[in-house]
């Protein structure tokens, strides 16, 4: 299973690398799947509101009103109809890739289960909304959808009289189910919005808007498709005739041919078992959870940087419970903590320059305290030799660093690179424990813990507190955000980096700047 997932991940990252090259990491659609889902949702809602203004809900008038929109008002209503359909299809595509990707990248375990599980009903609601939408047009496709869906529903042993009897013949047709479908098609997306909000509820700074350029590009592409291939009806429904063949929207309606061919109850069972399996995935197979962040009140001054930086809202600032003169203290909610360690990276007390007290950060992970991290760095630094001693920091979700380890290269794997306190980088370089530091891990724009790369970059560039001090020569720091498919690129960059470090040393010994950074 692990190997299969790793192979899938490699394939995924190779594809993402192509998109990185085309779109840049900031615009890569693979890193914006959730945001694109929201974007398509809003396109569907806005276009749907427009269509509803002109839509006649009578069963005999529905087809004419949609035809009027499509043919007479083609420049607005027709385009809106096409956008409504194609954005809905795009929503299915991005949601499916989103689900597969989160699974492959194992972003469903621990506290991340919440987003995963709340996404499952959203998925079914998308299909319910889509199915009911096709019903409303009341063309031949709608007739097929109505008959096939009701025949499938009738295989459930709950209904006294078959629902499909409502669609037996033109002479027996009544509008009651049509009215229900109008209600469902409006109510389900509204309820879905609530669930989508719950879905991202545990994320701080959730991405609900794609970058403007990507949004514009996607919208233009959908508009181009709407002009090139407008969505049209397939002739009015007539229950006296069999609507076959039909042009099926396979994104939404693929289940109906299956229901035609398989016993309906089997298909319901498959849907039920599939849903249960989907819900259980975060715990399959069961794994051991890492210890969560622990607050040390002796060192917590209630500065709230950890609360601001936690990507999962696991830290709140509560009233002080000790006698110290600070108003607040950090409080960790263990059920929300992903053990990423970004809080440690943000804690101003996580500085190895401390001399008067033991190195204990105000908040840190028990499995990798700042003191133990410093000690490991020092131990590795002592072992390294040569003129370009490099320490590589990676993360559990990036490349395995073992292959990099060499006479003058050491490596430490963290839960997330964002767990590195900037003063530690300062300490290692300024005190010449190593000649250079490499930071690597997840792909740029796609940190496993959402904000690890962003916060690290911002701390280094001085945009986010705690800053990396200006005195740290940035040329001794290499940031290389590679995925697991870019091992060669990482090696190349590290080799170039080492060459630059040697050059720097040569320049220094050749009479260049010899400022003692350890001061």
């Amino acid at each position: 299973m692990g190997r299969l997932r790793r192979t899938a991940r490699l394939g995924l990252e190779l594809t993402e690398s192509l998109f990185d090259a085309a779109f840049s990491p900031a615009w890569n659609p693979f890193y914006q799947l959730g945001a694109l889902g929201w974007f398509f949702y809003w396109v569907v809602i806005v276009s749907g509101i427009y269509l509803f203004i002109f839509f006649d809900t009578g069963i005999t008038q529905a087809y004419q009103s949609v035809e009027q929109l499509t043919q007479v008002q083609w420049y607005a209503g027709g385009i809106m109809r096409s956008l409504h359909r194609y954005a809905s299809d795009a929503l299915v595509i991005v949601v499916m890739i989103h689900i597969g990707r989160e699974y492959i990248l194992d972003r469903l375990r621990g506290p991340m289960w919440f987003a995963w599980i709340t996404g499952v009903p959203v998925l079914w609601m998308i299909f319910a909304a889509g199915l009911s939408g096709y019903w409303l047009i009341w063309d031949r496709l709608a007739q097929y959808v109505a008959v096939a869906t009701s025949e499938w529903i009738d295989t459930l042993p709950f209904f006294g009289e078959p629902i499909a009897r409502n669609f037996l013949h033109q002479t027996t047709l009544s509008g009651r189910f049509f009215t229900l479908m109008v209600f469902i098609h409006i109510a389900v997306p509204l309820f879905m919005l609530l669930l989508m909000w719950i879905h991202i509820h545990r994320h701080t700074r959730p991405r609900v808007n794609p970058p403007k350029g990507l949004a514009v590009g996607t919208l233009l592409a959908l508009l181009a498709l709407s002009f090139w291939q407008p969505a049209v009806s397939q002739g009015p429904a007539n229950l006296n005739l069999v609507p076959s063949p039909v042009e099926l929207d396979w994104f939404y309606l693929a289940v109906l041919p299956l229901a035609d061919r398989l016993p309906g109850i089997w298909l319901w069972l498959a849907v039920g078992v599939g849903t249960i399996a989907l819900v259980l995935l975060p715990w399959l197979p069961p794994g051991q959870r890492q210890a969560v962040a622990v607050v040390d009140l002796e060192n917590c001054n209630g500065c709230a940087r950890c609360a601001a930086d936690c990507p999962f809202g696991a830290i709140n600032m509560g009233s002080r419970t000790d006698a110290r003169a600070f108003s607040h203290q950090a409080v960790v909610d263990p059920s929300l903590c992903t053990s990423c360690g970004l809080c440690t990276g943000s804690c101003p007390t996580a500085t190895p320059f401390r001399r008067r007290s033991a190195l204990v950060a105000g908040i840190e992970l028990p499995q990798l305290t700042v003191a133990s991290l410093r000690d490991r760095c020092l131990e590795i630094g002592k072992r390294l030799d040569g003129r370009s001693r490099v320490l590589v920091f990676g993360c559990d979700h990036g490349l395995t660093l073992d292959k990099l380890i060499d006479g003058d290269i050491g490596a430490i794997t963290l839960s997330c690179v964002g767990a590195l306190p900037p003063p530690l980088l300062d300490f290692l370089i300024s005190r010449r424990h190593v000649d250079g530091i490499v930071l690597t891990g997840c792909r740029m724009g796609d940190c496993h813990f959402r904000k690890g790369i962003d916060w690290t970059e911002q701390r280094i560039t001085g945009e986010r507190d705690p800053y990396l001090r200006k005195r740290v020569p940035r040329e001794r720091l290499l940031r290389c955000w590679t995925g697991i498919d870019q091992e060669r690129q990482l090696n190349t960059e590290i080799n170039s980096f080492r060459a630059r470090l040697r050059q720097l040393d040569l320049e220094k010994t050749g009479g260049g700047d010899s400022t003692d950074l350890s001061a």
Partner: protein
Amino acid sequence: MPKPSRLAAQLIAYAAFVGLIGYFSKSPEYAYVDPQMALLRLSFSHAGERKGECRRLTPEEIAALPPNMRKPLDCPRERLPLLVELHVDGQLLDRRALPPSGIAGDGASTAYERFVIAPGYHRIMVRLRDTAREEGFDYEGEKLILFKPRQNVVIDFRAANGGFKFL
């Protein structure tokens, strides 16, 4: 401004994305019934007779009942299953027993079956038994129908309207 090569790659990606949507939003066509064939649907909802006879209660038994629940007859709830047969051109196409709905088996029996029929004239005969009789049927309907490709013919049943109806 992005490089032309990057813009071109983006255009290809957008085109592939909308191409995928454009194609699978209407293709390939799906025929759930061969368009050269017709469809015959047999569907109805009808309650069979009760399984047991109703028994007239004695005045004492009626008096023993709560006032709001007094009734002259005590009828068993459970109903008989229906037996239905469909013949096409003298050949038996379908024969099935339709159990009553409901947990107590006291609801109507329902049928919803579809049959693909070749175009042309066909004599359709349908029979229904809703009583405890051992032989024969209580209702029967027969009609010669010209089936055209894609035609949807429905056989409904309403006891109050005289039995089977061909729509």
